[in-house]
Structures are given as structure tokens and as C-alpha cells.
């Protein structure tokens, strides 16, 4: 009896230890599997349409093209706003603030940040090849989930945190500090309502908080893969 108990305890401790000792690479490998990154390599464009709620509800559209083309179209005060990157140049049309419908290049800092966002698979995929650093910062609670906390330090030294579900390895949250009107604030994005699109899971809801306060919610109505998209869409209009 005593032997059986000891054997069971040894087995349990071994299992628990192994479960706790996933490395950052192992966590990310499971994350890539859960999110079908192998299938994603066959996808060349993603078009996401829905609404963004930020006091009022406005339409939003995100268009992505491999490797690093990205375009965000939405409305602010019911006036169209666009931000885009063609892989080289990042530009924007911010009429509510500039009172102009002319496209302007983004500032250097904003452009670098936007080019990172334009990485089709996300900068955390094949992070080593991209020159970023990754470390596992243990586990913690994230809403109803227990998550692995992965710190990714970008090539520009900006730290991003990825909170990956310990059970199903879906991304539940991302966070980082951002510069907003001269002030450093904490930006947190929560991902939920995962649905399969052609065998790949995508979060259809994205809740954003700034310094702990609700900022916006994006809800996608459709996510379409490999739609025909013109490259011109991402180029800065003259």
C-alpha cells in the first residue's frame, strides 16, 4: 500500500513538473499548431469586415496581403479614416484630425509600429528569424483562463506580451505600452469568439482597453481568405 502511494506520488509529481516546465518554444509550437499556422502559409490575403464600437458603432475593414501589406479602413465621427502599409511605406488619411482627405506618410515611430502590425503571420511567428527575442514569464490568470505569459521583445526594443491559453493554446490577450498623446499608457486586447474559417481559427471579437478602461470593441461579421485584392489598395494615393 505504502509503495503504491509512493509510486502514485512520484508519478503525479513527475507529471506536474513536466506540465509546468514547457519552454517558451514549446508553448509557441503548440500555439502555432492550435492556430493552424501551417494552413495559414497557403493563405495570401485576408479580408475582415465588421464593426467597431467606440461610443457609437462604425464599420471597419482590415485587408491583409502576404508578406507585409495591411490596410485598416474605419470611420471616426462618421468620417472615413484609413491607415495602410505596402511593405515599404506606411501612410494614413486622418481627415477628422487633419481636415484633409490627402494621404500623409506616418511618422517614423508610427510607421515602424504599423509595419510590425502588417506582418501577415504576426511577428511572433518565426520570431527568431525576424530578430525578436522571446521569453516565458510563467503562468497567470486572464479572465476565465489560465494562460502562459510570453514576452516578445521586438527588434526596436518594444516589449509585447502574449497570453496563451494553457489548455487550448489560443491567444486570449495581448498587451503592451503605447504612446498616446505624449503619455505612456497600457494597451490590452482580449480575443474571443473564435470561429473556424476554412479550417483556421480566428477570433471574431476583440475588446480593447487603455489603462484598464474600455476603449473599443471590434466584432467581425466576415473573415474571407484568399479573396482577390489589388496591390494598389495598399499604396499611398498621390
Amino acid at each position, binding site marked *: 500500500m505504502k509503495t503504491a502511494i509512493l509510486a502514485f506520488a512520484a508519478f503525479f509529481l513527475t507529471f506536474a513538473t513536466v506540465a509546468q516546465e514547457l519552454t517558451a518554444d514549446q508553448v509557441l509550437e503548440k500555439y502555432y499548431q492550435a492556430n493552424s499556422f501551417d494552413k495559414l502559409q497557403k493563405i495570401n490575403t485576408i479580408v475582415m469586415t465588421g464593426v467597431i464600437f467606440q461610443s457609437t*458603432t462604425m464599420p471597419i475593414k482590415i485587408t491583409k496581403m502576404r508578406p507585409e501589406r495591411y490596410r485598416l479602413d474605419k470611420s471616426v465621427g462618421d468620417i472615413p479614416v484609413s491607415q495602410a502599409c505596402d511593405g515599404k511605406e506606411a501612410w494614413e488619411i486622418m481627415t477628422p484630425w487633419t481636415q484633409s482627405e490627402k494621404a500623409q506618410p506616418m511618422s517614423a515611430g508610427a510607421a515602424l509600429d504599423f509595419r510590425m502590425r502588417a506582418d501577415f503571420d504576426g511577428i511572433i511567428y518565426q520570431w527568431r528569424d525576424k530578430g525578436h527575442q522571446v521569453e516565458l514569464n510563467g503562468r497567470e490568470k486572464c479572465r476565465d483562463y489560465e494562460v502562459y505569459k510570453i514576452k516578445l521583445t521586438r527588434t526596436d526594443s518594444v516589449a509585447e506580451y502574449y497570453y496563451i491559453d494553457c489548455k487550448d493554446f489560443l491567444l486570449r490577450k495581448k498587451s503592451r505600452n503605447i504612446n498616446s498623446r505624449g503619455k505612456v499608457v497600457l494597451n490590452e486586447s482580449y480575443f474571443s469568439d473564435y470561429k473556424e474559417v476554412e479550417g483556421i481559427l480566428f477570433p471574431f471579437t476583440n475588446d480593447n482597453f487603455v489603462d484598464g478602461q474600455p476603449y473599443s470593441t471590434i466584432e467581425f461579421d466576415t473573415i474571407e481568405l484568399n479573396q482577390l485584392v489589388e496591390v494598389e489598395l495598399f499604396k499611398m494615393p498621390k
Partner: protein
Amino acid sequence: MWINRVFVLLAASGMIFFQLAAEEVHQWRGKDRSGMYNETGLLKKWAESGPGLVWESSQIGNGYGSPVITGNNIFINGEIDSTSYLFALDLAGKELWKSKIGPEWMLNYPGARTTPSVSGDLVYVTTGLGKVGCFETRTGRQKWSVDMISDLHGRNNRFGLSESVVVEGNSLFCMPGGADTNVVALDRLTGKIRWICKGLGQIPSHCSPLLVKLPQRNILVTFSQNALLGIDIKDGKLLWSHKQESVGDVHVNTPLYENGYIYYISGDGNGSVKLKLSEDGSGITQVWTNRRSDNCMGGFVKLGDYIYVASYERRYYYSLDANRGVVTDSLKFDHGTVNSADGMLYFYNERGQVGLVKPDGPKMEIVSSFKVTRGTKAHFAHPVISNGIMYIRHGQSLLAYSIKQNSN
């Protein structure tokens, strides 16, 4: 004899006055601005694709205001190239005339943001930059105009002046929002000032007022920057005010009066509130408040003992027990406007979905819904129901859907 002439003159004046006083006013959110339309024989269920679209007019300029429907005409304002115009259409959507009002608000949510008010053969309309115009319904000829900012020392606010004016008898009421000229009564035939109310000296708060009619007095109930005001329309005396316990300044929804009580809902203010109005209208007492019910600009309706309204922050529609002020049911349908006709509720949310909802006291059940896919920009405008047609304004388009039974 001279006395006969005097008598005839007096009689004629009395008839004119009586006629002015008795004119039906076609206005924002229907009779009494309650959001309820007196219709019968409407569909209790729609086809899966929604009710049939009878016509669309996409020549009405851009905006968020609702149309107003009279016996034979539709009046609506819209912005074209930064200028606001008043349009008259026939009931088939054909333009009868178009008249320039003045420059329109373009800073944010650009476009016309008010609904005309029609009394007799005159139609009154305002712009986001403060122009009040009076036009002949038949010809569109402008009879007079007043600029609330430059003529009445008014002040604008965050989202443009958004008041659909109240017309009563021989007066029109508007809120320039000046420190001294806060609320003003104009002679509706000439545009001349009848009285000025100093109010609390606050800027306007995007509200289209309510007129409460009591035996002793008629009261204009409206919001300024952070207070609900009750103003005697006879002389402009500020009777009472109800302060909002927040710093928000967007109090858009028209209040409601019923059986001695005023109901208002301001998501940027105190939430949902019930006030008891004294018998002579000179004072108010708070009965209850509910901050959870926090609608911003979609309006609300009261059917029996329940109020139906969308919650802004949580993006659900709620039913509220009007006696106790508690939420009794919620319906997941984003947030937006509420109207009622023929015992049903009509929800139009900011995602462009229109829901036909069966109210059953505390409960709500969505029966049918469809999506408005035509038109432009935000889905903010309140629908109007008249003679079996549901009119939805979506940006540059006015859409007429048939919702009469035996019509689809």
C-alpha cells in the same frame, strides 16, 4: 356700422389665433414626440428578407435627421457640399422642391442632424450651425430665418446644434444656448423674439424638447449642458431644473410626459429617471433613477407600465418597469433607436439591423429582422411610420418599406 367692422375684425383675429393654436404639428418622433405612431393593420411578422422596399430616394443630401410626413408630402433636410437643404417630396419619393437653408455642421458626423416641424402651411427646420428657417410647404420659399449664433448670441456644442424645434400656437421655441439668450421663443410667422429665458446659461445639449400641456401652463422640457430644464412657454420663466450628476454633456433623448410624470433617459447624465411633476407644473420630485439604462440618442417608448430602450454601453435593449425603475428583460440586438406602432416595437440598431419586436409587459421577443444595406454612413436616424410605410433615412438615402398587412 363701425362696431360691426370691429366685431368682424375681432372675430377674424380670433379665428386666425384659434387656427394657429389648433394646427396639428407634424414633428420629430410623431405626436407628442413619444416615438409612437398611431397605425393599425401593420404586419406582425416580416419575410426573411424584410419588408418590401417600395422606393428609395438618394437625392436628399447627407444626414441623420428623420423625415416628417404630412398628408401628402415628406419633408427632410440633408447636406450637400457643406450646405444644408430642405427637401419636399411627394409620397412616391419624387422631389417637389429643394430650398437652401445654410451652411451645415461638418466637424464630426457631418450632415444634417435635425427633423423639420410642419405646422399648417409652414415648415421649420434648423442646421447644425444654428440657422432656423421657416419655409412655405407648397413652394419652398423661405419666409424668414434667424441665426441662433450670430442673431441670438448663441453658442455651439460638441456635435453641432441638433434641436428639432417645438412649434406651438404662434410660437416656435429654440435653444441658442447663450449665457443670457439661453432658450428663446420666436413668433413663428415672423421670426421675431417673443421672450428670452436665461435658463442656467449653459450650452445646448443636442436635445429636441418636449412640450407638456397642463391646465395651468404649458412647459417646454429640454436639456442644456448638464441639466433638464422646465420652462413656462407663456413668458419664458424657468420653473425648475434637474441637474445631471456627471460631466457628460450629450443629453439627446426627448423626455416623455404621462399622467403627471416626466421620464427621461440620458446615458451621459443620470441614466433613466422618473420625476413627479407637481400639478401646476412648477416643481419636480425625483421618483427613481437607473444608471444601467444609459441610452445616448436612440429614444425610448413607454407602453403600459414598461419603458423600452437600448442600453448604450452594454449594447442590449432593455425593458424597464416604469413604476419601480428596474430592468425586467434584456435583448441582445446591439444598440440603437426604439419606436412603436400597432402594438409592436421597432428597433433600428447602429449595425443597420431593423428588428420587429413583440413586447409582452416586462418581456420582449424579436419576431423578425432584416439589415438596411442601402444608403450611406452611420445608422442613426430614427425611423418614421406613416400610413403603413416605414421610412428609414440612412445617410443620403430615404428608404420607404411597406409594412402594411396584405402588402408583401
